[in-house]
């Protein structure tokens, strides 16, 4: 037992490093006793070291801590995504006036690291209990983060809402888990899969109930309809870096666990045939996912059209984007999962970029309303052109990274002859253009008010960060070989033959 645990620790190095850097950041914060970039830098260094160790796990495939977590290319991929996005968000926080003006010192840095830790565990857990615990780790940290500005009413309100929805969802989820456990007698998803493959109780409607209940937990993390109600309010209330963090890192973590759960648990005999998952008869989870996906796309896109606040609009847009990503799961094959991973990479760049522009703008203008951006293209051209790139990427115009993601998702659908679903998704992305381009309409098509033509100035660091996000958004749109190679490599999960 002890030996096994010690062995397991070897595959736990990235997470251990995160824990250490978390502690280091807390101590540094206590020593410095004031707002300081040093803590952020220490945090970033910690994450980089952790990412390095995660990278070292690239060719590893193993199970650790008596079947609690696994190490496989799939989890390494997500660890990289989390590391990259957390680093970017910590840098965002340095730029954000909201974070700077809060009464806290540097708490956000180690809260973010702990969220990344939870996310790492989510991506690698193969035990239902572990999934639940890591999901809660992420959730609780997000509650604190979204109420970060405790003096701001909106922020506290959003945290409160988040807690209530979160508690309800995870309550439902744990109930679903207990049902599944009662059914199968195991918490380990491989064992559940084995049990379900042999037993013929799968056609029971209770199975569907289990799935739906467990989906409540995952769906809440990826803000899928009908578990999305917290999203707009929390996104609007939380400081923008936190919003970006929730939209990208936390939702990617939700996808990580969602994909693994469905791909592994309901796999017939743990086998993949020609890249297709053999689904256990009777457990028709792709149909449930189709419903959620289509509902998320339609609701997200159509409600986003009416928003006047860019932050709120991005909240609905991320509901819709979550709907697109889920399409990859519907086809239940490796190609679909590859497409999802590609989309998640694309999503990281374009969504973080959009939020960064929002941070820069609201620092200067103290507003995230569309109307406040009137004529901004003439006052801050570079920032607004970058925003144009991100918006067009989100709506999936070719030659941006967003198109590559959508192209692969739709390819996966069409390859499985799901033309109608691809058509629904495509029509949705036509609708989505309407509100994404609305931002550009305010920025470029409308002229600034009379006498308000002074150019806005931004620090060189802001421009560097902006280009660091905008250039990949364009470059990988034109040359996407690396993205696809990475995703293909990472689509292999432990325990699936």
């Amino acid at each position, binding site marked *: 037992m002890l030996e096994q645990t010690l062995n397991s620790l070897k595959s736990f190095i990235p997470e251990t490093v995160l824990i250490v850097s978390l502690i280091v950041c807390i101590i540094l914060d206590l020593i410095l006793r004031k707002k300081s970039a040093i803590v952020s830098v220490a945090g970033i260094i910690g994450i980089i070291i952790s990412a390095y160790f995660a990278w070292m796990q690239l060719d590893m495939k193993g199970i650790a801590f008596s079947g609690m977590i696994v190490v496989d290319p799939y989890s390494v991929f997500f660890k990289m995504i989390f590391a990259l996005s957390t680093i970017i968000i910590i840098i965002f926080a340095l730029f954000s006036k909201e974070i700077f003006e809060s009464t806290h010192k540097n708490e956000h840095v180690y809260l973010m690291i702990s969220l990344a830790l939870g996310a790492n565990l989510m991506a690698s857990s193969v035990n239902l209990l572990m999934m639940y615990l890591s999901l809660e780790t992420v959730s609780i940290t997000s509650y604190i983060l979204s109420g970060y500005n405790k003096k701001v009413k909106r922020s506290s309100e959003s945290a409160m809402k988040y807690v209530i929805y979160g508690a309800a969802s995870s309550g439902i989820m744990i109930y679903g888990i207990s049902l599944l456990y009662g059914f199968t007698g195991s918490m380990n998803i491989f064992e559940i899969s084995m049990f379900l493959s042999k037993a013929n109780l799968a056609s029971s409607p209770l199975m569907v109930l289990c799935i739906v209940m467990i989906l409540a937990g995952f769906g809440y993390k990826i803000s899928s309809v009908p578990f999305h109600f917290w999203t707009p309010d929390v996104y609007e209330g939380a400081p923008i870096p936190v919003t970006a963090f929730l939209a990208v890192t936390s939702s990617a973590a939700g996808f990580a666990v969602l994909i693994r759960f469905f791909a592994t648990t309901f796999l017939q005999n743990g086998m993949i045939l020609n*890249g297709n998952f053999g689904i256990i008869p009777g457990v028709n989870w792709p149909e449930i996912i189709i419903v959620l996906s289509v509902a998320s796309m339609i609701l997200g896109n159509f409600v986003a059209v009416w928003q006047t606040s860019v932050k709120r609009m991005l909240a609905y847009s991320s509901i819709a984007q979550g709907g697109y990503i889920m399409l990859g799961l519907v086809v239940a094959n490796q190609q679909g999962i590859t497409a999802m991973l590609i989309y998640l990479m694309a999503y990281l760049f374009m969504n973080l970029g959009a939020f960064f522009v929002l941070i820069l703008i609201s620092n200067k203008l103290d507003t995230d309303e569309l109307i406040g951006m009137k004529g901004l293209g003439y006052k801050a051209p570079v920032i607004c052109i970058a925003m144009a790139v991100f918006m067009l990427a989100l709506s999936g115009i*070719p*030659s941006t990274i967003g198109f590559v993601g959508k192209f692969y998702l739709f*390819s996966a659908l069409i390859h499985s002859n799901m033309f109608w679903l691809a058509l629904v998704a495509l029509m949705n992305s036509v609708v989505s*253009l309407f509100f994404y*381009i609305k931002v550009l309409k305010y920025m470029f*098509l409308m002229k600034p008010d009379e006498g308000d033509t002074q150019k806005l100035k931004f620090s060189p660091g802001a421009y560097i960060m902006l280009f660091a996000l905008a250039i990949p958004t364009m470059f990988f749109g034109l040359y996407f*070989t690396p993205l696809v190679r990475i995703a*293909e490599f990472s689509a292999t999960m432990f325990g699936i033959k």
Partner: protein
Amino acid sequence: MIEFKLLGIGILTWMVFLPILGMVVLLLMPKSAEKYIKYVAVGFTSLLLVLAAVLLAVYDPSKAGVNTLSGFQFVEKLTWIDIPAYLFDGRIKIEYFLGVDGISFPMVLLTALISFVGAIASFSVKRNEKGYYVMYLFLVTGMMGVFVALDFFLFFVFWEIMLLPMYFLIGIWGGERREYAAIKFFLYTLFGSAFILLVMIGLYFSSKDPETGLRTFNMITLMDPRTFAPDSIFGVLNVTWRLIAFAALFVGFAIKVPAFPFHTWLPDAHVEAPTAISVILAGVLLKMGTYGMLRISWSIFPDGARYFMVPIAIIAAINIIYGALCAMAQKDFKKLIAYSSISHMGYVLLGMASCTQIGINGAIFQMFNHGTITAVLFLSVGVIYDRAHTRGLNDFGGLANKMPKYFAVIMVAMFASIGLPGLSAFISETFIFLGGFKNEFIRVIAIISTLGIILNAAYILWTIQRLFLGTLPEKWNILTDINARELISTVPLLVIVIFLGIFPSFMINLMTTSVNQLVNFIWGIN
């Protein structure tokens, strides 16, 4: 295969990316040099024109192209995306594959010509010139790319990125309802391209290159029936799916044409767009729709083209007659020309629906002629609007004496638009109707469509009457005649119109070998 390189780079690449180079130059220009921006932009488009002339000199009209790779000229083929082991599905390969044949060559010439004219016409833009010309050149790249791309993926990328500059050009420099018009244009076209994308991906997954055994986006390979496995979704046995795909593609392209009932974006876009952009829109953009049909729908799904001959001809007839009737009801000069474009693009559709040599020759020729003639008409609208700040047809009268040179220019263009013998459109329209009569399935529809010619003459002549005849209202005594710059942008086009009216075989010769090949291919003769 004819190859032609400048500085080691193929001439078509030069033509596509020269405007991008121009964009970069414009962006790097310092503030002090702002007044030279327009000249630089004109310089780059005139370089494009020079390259087009070079291309014309070297072009070999005896090569067919269409579905034979060896028949394409100035071919450039590079690997763009090549991912060796796409999971469980062979490898994915997207090529940077350019080339021209008789179908695309007239369009390449037209694009170069209209881009140059449009750049000169843009001199009247006074606000934020740098942004305007940057967008303008970007648009030119997109258009040129569409006409020379032979890889479906590449084609699609050009097709879509061209929307962006257009959105901003209409939306920033347009008229009063510019925001509405710009977004309407964008959404409509994006709606159409959703269908194109679906079919594109579907084709990819049905294909298997007979030589390499890989899936492909290569249009020429996709035209080969052997490429499709019989049981694949667009395989030869899957007749229904092939027809659905044809219909979906048709919708995608028809929006751009625009064919009834997808035409409603056009009048709005035209009325709100600045003059030069209207010229580009009518001159080149609409042709992308019909070109796309010939290059992709007709060639990859010849069975669809045969099957849907009659419905397409009916849509064409509606376009011709409905467009003309709408034009007749307009009080706004620009809107009238916009509706006449719908009517004239109907002729193109009719010629294509006939699937005969003469009909398709006429259609491509009409695409070129409509480009030149409508460009002049929109420029003429711009001339009067710049002076009088109104386009109301009923606000004018008796301009013939006040602006004689303008009158001369517009008369030639308008008579060409009617299809007067001796002017280019006469030949193309005649060809189209001959094609329509020759095909017995659509003969009746073609006969009905001839009504359009009369309506066409009616609204044009009525327009001439309202603008130029009668008495000149007091307030228009201030109007000045057309100036040198405006003459430079219109007269060369009119010279081409007259030249092609007298000597049409110059243009027909360029395309006819390819058209024969295409028609034979559609009817499965070769």
